[in-house]
């Protein structure tokens, strides 16, 4: 067994254990911590694939930002028990069956397929940058724009209602003022 294979099994074990913890932990904080373990393991797997850039991105975006965001929301919404606990037995059985069948099908396809493996492994940050800023520059800009729009939408959604009501009231008074002004112009 090669060294990289040993490391792969270690990271894969951490990732799968974290994923199982995420699904089966009763406490949501524990679930988020399990997700964190999985994300770190996937960052390590990116390193194993030879991409330092993706590993760093995974650590920053997922390990840092998204985990902290989820924990913040968890604390904002309070340590409330998941109303009524878990879902119904039949739903769980059906979902488990579906997932097992799906995994079996994918695994079978993977073992039977013949991939055209290329021997050289050249992956550096510069090659990602080159392709992002040449061939995929328009999708890159669109991705940035859609991220901005989504985050503005998130702020609008999560804002307290009274702020929105105050803005609507302002708009109403403005409209009323405009109408009365129009009426005065008409009478004059």
């Amino acid at each position: 067994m090669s060294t990289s294979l040993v490391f792969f099994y270690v990271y894969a074990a951490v990732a799968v254990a974290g994923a199982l913890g995420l699904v089966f932990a009763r406490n949501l904080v524990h679930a988020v911590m399990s997700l964190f373990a999985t994300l770190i393991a996937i960052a390590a797997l990116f390193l194993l694939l030879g991409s330092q850039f993706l590993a760093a991105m995974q650590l920053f975006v997922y390990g840092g930002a998204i985990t902290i965001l989820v924990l913040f929301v968890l604390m904002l919404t309070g340590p409330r028990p998941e109303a009524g606990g878990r879902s119904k037995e039949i739903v769980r059985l059906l979902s488990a069956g579906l997932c097992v069948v799906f995994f079996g099908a994918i695994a079978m396809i993977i073992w039977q397929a013949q991939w055209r493996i290329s021997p050289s492994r050249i992956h550096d940050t510069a090659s990602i940058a080159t392709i992002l800023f040449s061939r995929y520059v328009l999708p890159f800009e669109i991705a940035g724009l859609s991220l901005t729009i989504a985050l503005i939408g998130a702020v609008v959604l999560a804002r307290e209602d009274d702020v929105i009501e105050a803005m609507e009231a302002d708009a109403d008074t403005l409209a009323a003022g405009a109408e009365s002004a129009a009426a005065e112009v008409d009478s004059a």
Partner: protein
Amino acid sequence: MTLTLNHFLVLGAALFCIGLYGALTSRSALRVVICVELVLNAVNLNLAAFSAYVAPRQAVGMSFVVFLMVMAAAEVGLALAIVITLNRANDINAIDSIKRLRG
């Protein structure tokens, strides 16, 4: 025994299925959101593995991972905003008791 593409693909499929099971069976809205994050991560792993093994000279798969990360960040921001809004409006956290999204 050496590390091959199949190892990464099977791991990605396993993570995908675990995340799918969690998203299907969980009743907590927050847990559904993080299970979807797990599914997206499994897809990221697959893309990076294919890119590294099949077409290593051009980092197309790697750049797709970057796009997916951006989309995942947007998705999690919006989803968490919806969770907060639902929590404030209805004082509930279980997704199957949510009947309407408007207002």
